[in-house]
């Protein structure tokens, strides 16, 4: 069963929830696009229905809600250190199934990758309540069905936004108090077919032909085309690499803080090591590293494809490089390579 809401009762629910939660959703920031007179659609805090932007895919993903770009891990002075406090409030995120699935992918990296859980991630992640936005059409670069990220059933509340008619399924009883309206038949729907279908490579086949894929000429093209700007990794909901920075305050270098800040395997400096050496200097090699992590290495380790098929990397690439096309090329190469 679902509950039918009008905008007023939806806004009222947000008002009630905002007492205990910070509420995030895709929003439109007027004039904040890179180009003049364009908007930026990204994740931000909302307080009403009109704040939510549903007509366009957000440029950045909701990962920054639980994994901020810059995160202070602790402040230090001569002989003391202190972790920063975090907000007491819970976190509600309105997101589409692909992005909801991306949180599960991040969980593998931060919580299930080795003996320790990442506490900084965990303390924000534990607060998250999934308010899933029904998505049955997607956008022109979406391929979530191919990556198996088109469905997300473990939601707290599920929403269908049909113009100003809102229907929701409150799965988590914790939220029943906030939503009141007419009860209606309601079965959440998920997208069953994207405009784009991508055949992912068989990872066993890659494992058997690793050298072949690693050295394949298909990567050379990207040494020429890619500019190593890192837009694809920044917009990716599953990229999770970071660097550490120790800051000594200018006025008093005895105090400072340690931060972790997003890093990108596409950008210069990512592989710098002591002695001044670095790896993967060719951009094609960086592309290989990124793509293979998304469709091969991660799956080998965690049993699920890292990429959720949101298509943001294709949307944001200033050089019109298509990740989707690369994946297809890899699949083709692997299939052909094996038959050799």
């Amino acid at each position, binding site marked *: 069963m679902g509950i039918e809401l009008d905008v007023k009762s939806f806004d009222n629910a947000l008002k009630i929830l905002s007492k205990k939660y910070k509420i995030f959703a895709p929003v439109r*920031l007027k*004039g*904040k*696009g*890179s*180009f*003049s*007179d364009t908007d*930026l659609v*990204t994740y931000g805090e909302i307080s009403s229905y009109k704040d939510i932007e549903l007509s366009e895919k957000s*440029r*950045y993903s909701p990962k920054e809600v639980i994994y*901020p*770009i*810059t995160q202070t891990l602790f402040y230090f002075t001569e002989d003391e250190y202190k972790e920063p406090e975090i907000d007491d409030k819970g976190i509600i995120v309105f997101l589409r199934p692909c992005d909801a699935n991306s949180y599960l992918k991040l969980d593998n990296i931060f919580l299930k990758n080795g003996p320790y859980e990442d506490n900084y991630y965990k303390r924000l992640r534990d607060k998250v309540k999934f308010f899933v936005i029904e998505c049955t059409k997607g956008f022109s670069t979406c391929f979530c069905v191919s990556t198996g990220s088109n469905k997300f059933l473990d939601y707290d509340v599920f929403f269908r936004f049909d113009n100003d008619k809102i229907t929701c399924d409150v799965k988590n009883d914790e939220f029943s108090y906030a939503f009141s309206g007419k009860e209606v038949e309601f079965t959440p729907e998920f997208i069953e077919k994207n405009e784009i279908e991508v055949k992912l490579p068989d990872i066993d086949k890659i494992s058997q032909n690793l050298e072949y894929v690693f050295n394949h000429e298909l990567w050379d093209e990207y040494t020429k085309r890619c500019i190593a*700007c*890192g*837009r694809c990794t*920044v917009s990716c909901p599953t990229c999770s690499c970071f*660097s550490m*920075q120790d*800051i*000594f305050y*200018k006025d008093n270098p005895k105090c400072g803080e340690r*931060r972790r*800040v*997003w*890093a*990108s395997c596409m*950008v*210069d*400096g990512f592989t710098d090591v002591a002695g001044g050496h670095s790896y993967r200097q060719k951009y094609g090699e960086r592309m290989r590293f990124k793509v293979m992590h998304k469709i091969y290495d991660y799956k080998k380790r965690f049993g699920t494809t890292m990429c959720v098929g949101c298509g943001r990397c294709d949307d944001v690439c200033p050089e019109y490089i298509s990740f989707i096309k690369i994946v297809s090329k890899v699949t083709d190469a692997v299939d052909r390579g094996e038959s050799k």
Partner: protein
Amino acid sequence: MILDIDTKLLKKNAYRVTKQRGITALRIRVPGGHLNIKYFDIIKEVAEKYGNGTVHITTRQGFEIPGISMEKIDEINELISPIIRGLKDEGVQIEDEEGGYPAAGTRNVSACIGNRVCPFANYDTTALALKIEKLIYPNDYHVKIAVTGCPNDCIKAHMQDIGIIGQVEPIYDPSRCIGCQACVKNCKRRVTGALTFENFKVVRDPNRCISCGECILKCPTSAWTRGEKYYRIVIMGRTGKKNPRLAQTFIEWADEESVLKIIKNMYDFIDKYIDKTLDKEHVGYIVDREGFKKFKEEVLKDVKLPKKAKVANHIDYTGYRYERNTIYD
């Protein structure tokens, strides 16, 4: 055949006296360098029927149709009336639609392609050019204005009496910066090196920054975003025979309202100080004669500049003069 033609009126009508007796050429204004394609049919018809079947694209982004017989001017003016009406519909004050162009002294306002197409442009140059056209045309005073989207200055605003250059105030959110230094490297390589990297974040030197917006374009995380739009006004650039030179910055961080008011005021300045004994006098020569201080006083009358605005105290024009003692090989 008797040819009795008032050449002064002919010139004001946007025709010209050519080297061939009795033959003229018509200049079609294209404000902002942007024209509805429907007018091409008219230009084509004039060129084919009255001209020599060719058209010249002028340096100010207009069309010049050569090879026209002076006797046909009235017919042509009637034929081009839809183009004149088009200007009128945009808000340009023209009384007689059938009489051709009412003035030619104030030249076509040219513009780079602007932010309707170009990723670097900081504003809609075509729209601003049209606003300026409405403000200053028709007018006989000899003035050249061009507007350009960013300090790349593709339209060559630096060669105009008034050049308008788009500025954007870049706003930096350090919490979104991943320290990739794309902005720092680019600013150093392609702009003025206004950005440095300190303590893993970017520091902008406002005195070096020319507010082009490249940092915003290069930023993968939108740590740099767009603040308010502003305009830099450069003045008294020119070619010509007397001391050709690049325009110099008069005002930085002006808003659109101030830009328009300053341009309007410049016409009052010309009106006041032009040498009326001459047939015509180019605004640049008037400013040279009367001095920058007087010009500044006149054009800033009742202009409310934004707080951020900076006005040049003094301008040193260099350029070159032909009478100097150049030593040739």
